[in-house]
């Protein structure tokens, strides 16, 4: 049974797939160009001190982003 949540709430180490990337504007576009598009497999690796930013693994590399960015990414696992 697939569970849906946002990337910020994805438990560390759990693999999931992106279902939607919300938002318009430069940041969203940049996120997608870095490979965060619906269908891609992602995983949260860790969080920095104070919980922000977080490190995300996708397409074989590590991307650091803030919680605000991660909030806009919907995933399913």
């Amino acid at each position, binding site marked *: 049974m697939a569970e849906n949540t946002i990337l910020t709430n994805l438990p560390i180490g759990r*693999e999931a797939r992106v279902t939607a990337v919300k938002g*318009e504007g*430069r*940041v969203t*576009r*940049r*996120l*997608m*160009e*870095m*490979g965060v*598009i*619906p*269908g*891609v*497999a992602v*995983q949260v*690796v*860790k*969080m*920095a*001190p*104070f919980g*922000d*930013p977080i*490190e995300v*693994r996708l*397409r*074989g*590399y*590590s*991307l*650091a*982003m*803030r919680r*605000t*960015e991660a909030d806009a990414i919907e995933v399913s696992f």
Partner: protein
Amino acid sequence: MDTNGHNSQITIALAGNPNAGKTTLFNSLTGLKQKVANYPGVTVERKEGPWTLNGKTANLIDLPGLYSLDATSLDEHIASDIIRGEQAGVQKPDAIVAVVDATNLERNLYLVMQMFEFGVPVVIALTMIDVFEKQKHEIDIEMLSARLKTPVVAVNAKSGRGRNQLAAKVQEVLHTTPVVPYEFNENAENAGPNGKIFSRYNFISEVVQDSVWHSDQKSHRLSDKIDRVLTHKFFGLVILVAILLVVFQTIFSWASLPMDLLEKGFGAISDFVRAEMPPGILTDLLADGIIAGVGGVVVFLPQILLLFLFISLLEDSGYMARAAFLLDKLMSRVGLHGKAFLPLISSFACAIPGIMATRTIESRRDRFATIMIAPFMSCSARLPVYTLMIGAFFGGQYVFGFISMGAVLMLAMYALGIIVAIVVAGILKRTVLKAPPPPFLMELPPYRLPNLRTVFQNMFTRALLFLKRAGTVILAISIILWALMYFPRSSQQSAVSGQQPEVSVAGNIPSESTPLPESEQLKHSFAGKLGHVIEPVIQPLGFDWKIGVALIASFAAREVLVSTLSIIYNVGKDEGAESQTLIAAVRDAKTDDGKPAWTPLTALTLMVFFVLAMQCMSTVAIVRRETNSWSWPLFMIGYMTALAYLGAFLTYQGGKLLGFG
């Protein structure tokens, strides 16, 4: 054909993601015969070099590292303009070499997809194959090439292996038109402005699936293990501080022996000149002006080398990105961009390239905020000043028994700069440069062993530049300062005071024909008069007029403080005195009323001043360029000078109140 219709050299553009090995490849293809300049109208760095393609020489342009040609930041704009042939002064490339990192295939190929759409023939240079294979994956290069409809050549960026094949393939594709290997599916779901992005990645996923075996999720295993410690929620920051302490401590201890040797060497040269040359003004200029001034700065060469060694090691290994990750929360609290981290770190070497590096920051206000605070990152020119002060008054002391006081104070000075920078950024972002909080999107490249050859090449280049600066700018300033301290010569006093000129005795250092002892001469010289004029202003900071002269001179270049002190304490030296080390001279220096000119508190005050003051004309120049107005650089000079005075004042007076006077 360039824009004038002339048939010129073949132009090849080298493009790719950051961290893909592009610059290393560029270096090995052009053999370091690069030319670095700026693009007209902007301060984006323009790097070109000659690349031999089977007899003919092509012009290879190293484009800035980018993730996408849908430009968002300044350097991406430039790169895409260049590829389209719309960048003034640059010929449209006849071909593009796309550097693709095999360990990061999908994201790297995204950029390549965009290149196809520009209609310029592409050859893919696939780097890091060895790393990729070590991680137990395999790439079928032929399949990749067939699916992408473009040649793919495996290269080793460091050793240059594969470059002949690369050159051959580039020759093949010249004057051909690339085929876009996929179609935009107009009717796909989620089409719209982002439809292209999806099409590209969907295609890429297919291609990668067909050409790569054993795509493994655990590809970053070792880096992850290291990161678990280094970016730990709590210990990560502690480790960061510890690493910095160790770096400073090492710089101190390893540098002290070579520095001693250099100093003794210059002292010996100076004594030699005095002994062998006939007494006279030229001898004075050589010994007290040139050797003292230039030598005073050159002794710090070992320090500078070690500083750059560590900066390179930290950068190359990938640790810097982790540090940015750790500190981002702190930086974003003051509205600083995560991308500001790298420019700020570069500023620890020199603010100029650091300020240039801010062009990757998209928002103008964020960029300006970063530019304004970059000079607070204590640059390498401040190092001689810190070292002299610490060496003279805080040497040999230890905190907790094993951490040297020197390292702690160094760290404190650097930390002071950082703290002030954060505060200033916070203020700026809340007032003049208010903008929405910036996003943070940064790749964390896997750790790698620093390329020692690059590191040492870097150090060597820095050393040469340092020496060149010493031999030109510092030399000129030393001569001028010496002249200001030497002239006008006072001779009237002899008649008044009745002092007899000393008679030269064979074997002794012959005396000058001037009647006044040198220490008195100094007071009546141009420099001396100037120093006395400003003395009231700097007295509340604990400085005497000689220090004042040095302070003024250091606004031309920070290291000049050391040169000036060296000259002042030499020029003001009386006959028969042997040349001392600068540290000894500083300790012995006296004010006009015979009290010590320097105390540990004064030394600390001076350091604080240097942390906060704007003393670099080149920085002012580049801020003027980057902000395109005079108001920002003038503002910077103004508030930093005021801050420096205030900081020094508080340090000195506060220290006296606490009894450290």
